[in-house]
């Protein structure tokens, strides 16, 4: 397991800090500009969710290796209200932001792997990985 760097998300400026952290690690790993933009967009989205719905939480970035593959893992953890219907939240076209297409299905699309655990009143833990091609 690699080293984690984390950013606490308390206000909107922290979203930029989380993006910056993600971009730095992505650059170090050798991701191209398109993938950098995708990773930072995914981080923005996760951080924004924490900021909007959980109030606070943190985003951690980790370099990971599996065999000869290298990747970047984003971990978004909060102890907010949790998600009551994950199936619905993961459904395309459900997010209310008119046609944005982001939300959690967007994050899943921008990354290669995606896992979510959420309990009501306990919080949400999302892990997403992008592999270097």
């Amino acid at each position, binding site marked *: 397991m690699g080293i984690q760097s984390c950013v606490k998300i308390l206000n909107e400026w922290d979203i930029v800090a989380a993006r910056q952290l993600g971009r730095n690690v992505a650059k170090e790993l050798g991701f191209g*500009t*398109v993938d950098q933009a995708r990773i930072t*967009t995914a981080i923005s989205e996760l951080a924004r969710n924490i900021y909007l719905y959980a109030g606070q939480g943190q985003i951690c970035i980790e370099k990971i290796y599996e065999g000869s593959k290298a990747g970047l893992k984003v971990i978004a953890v909060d102890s907010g209200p949790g998600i009551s219907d994950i199936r619905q939240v993961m459904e*395309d076209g459900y997010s209310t932001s008119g046609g944005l*297409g982001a939300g959690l*299905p*967007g994050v899943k*699309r*921008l990354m290669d792997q995606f896992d979510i655990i959420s309990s009501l009143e306990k919080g949400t833990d999302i892990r997403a990985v992008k592999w270097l091609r």
Partner: protein
Amino acid sequence: MDLRGKMEEKYRNIIIDYLRDQSEQTLYQGQKFSRELIEKKISPEEIVSLHKGLLLDLYPNVPESVIHSFDVLLEVMVGYGLAYREHQSLRNKQMEFRTEMEIAANVQQTLLGTSIPVVEGLDIGAISVPARHMNGDYFHFVLDDHQCVNVAIADVIGKGIPAALCMSMIKYAMDSLPENRHAPHMVLESLNRVVEQNVDPSMFITMFYGMYNPSNHIFYYSSAGHEPGFYYDAQTGGFSEMEAKGLLLGIDKKTKYQQYEREVHPGDMIILMSDGVTECRTEEGFLERDALISNIRKYIHLDAQTIVNNIYKDLERLQDFQLRDDFTLIILKRNV
């Protein structure tokens, strides 16, 4: 060469061609390339990145600022890229949904199926088209043992699947009616009791029930709040409304229905419909019942099935190919 490499080369060639001649021909290549990219599910942000790379490559001394500006364009395009990829997924869902609906519509067809009876001296045409996928309108023919033609036309208040679920109930109820179908008012009375008892209290059904007796050429009918039909008198060439009073099915289980009758002369027509025919809304407002009549007149020399088909086609186009309500139209024409 991998897919991305191939696309890169194609784009490079198109750009180089265009910088040389700025021709329409090359822009057309660009459009075809766009089609290909989309078919191959390449996101728009990749094209922006490709474009930036090409510029750097072709003009190594292009100002740095121009190159930097592409970072912003790329960032903006990632959002569109997401919308675009969600689009792919929604298209697939749409396909799945369409397939499911086709199966459901078939099941409904099997459940509600009716065939137009062949009777000497009577020319019958009928069409029923759902506004969405499943039909909340319903028509049914029965040729009874006395060679009488029984015809039912019904409309659930509401459209789509909820209405279709209700309509299947009506079909079960009609199938289990006692055998004496002869009196339209009695048929409506017994169906009314079934609907009142079994269907969600917020669902109502309008129904017109008629019976044509070919031995005395009389058409008997009753209506449960259904859109009134037209009667065409061949001798005078005039149309009149077949008014009939009666409460909708499902409101009050004690409702009684009045029965009406008309003598049908050679060439006369009975025209039955759901409100989807008359309430078809066009850009200029609702279609008037008068307009429908002039539409029927236009095709009056044709056989009944062709008339209903043609009228449907005309109204479909008038509504810009988007039906607002289920559409059902039936014509019974006594031959000479």
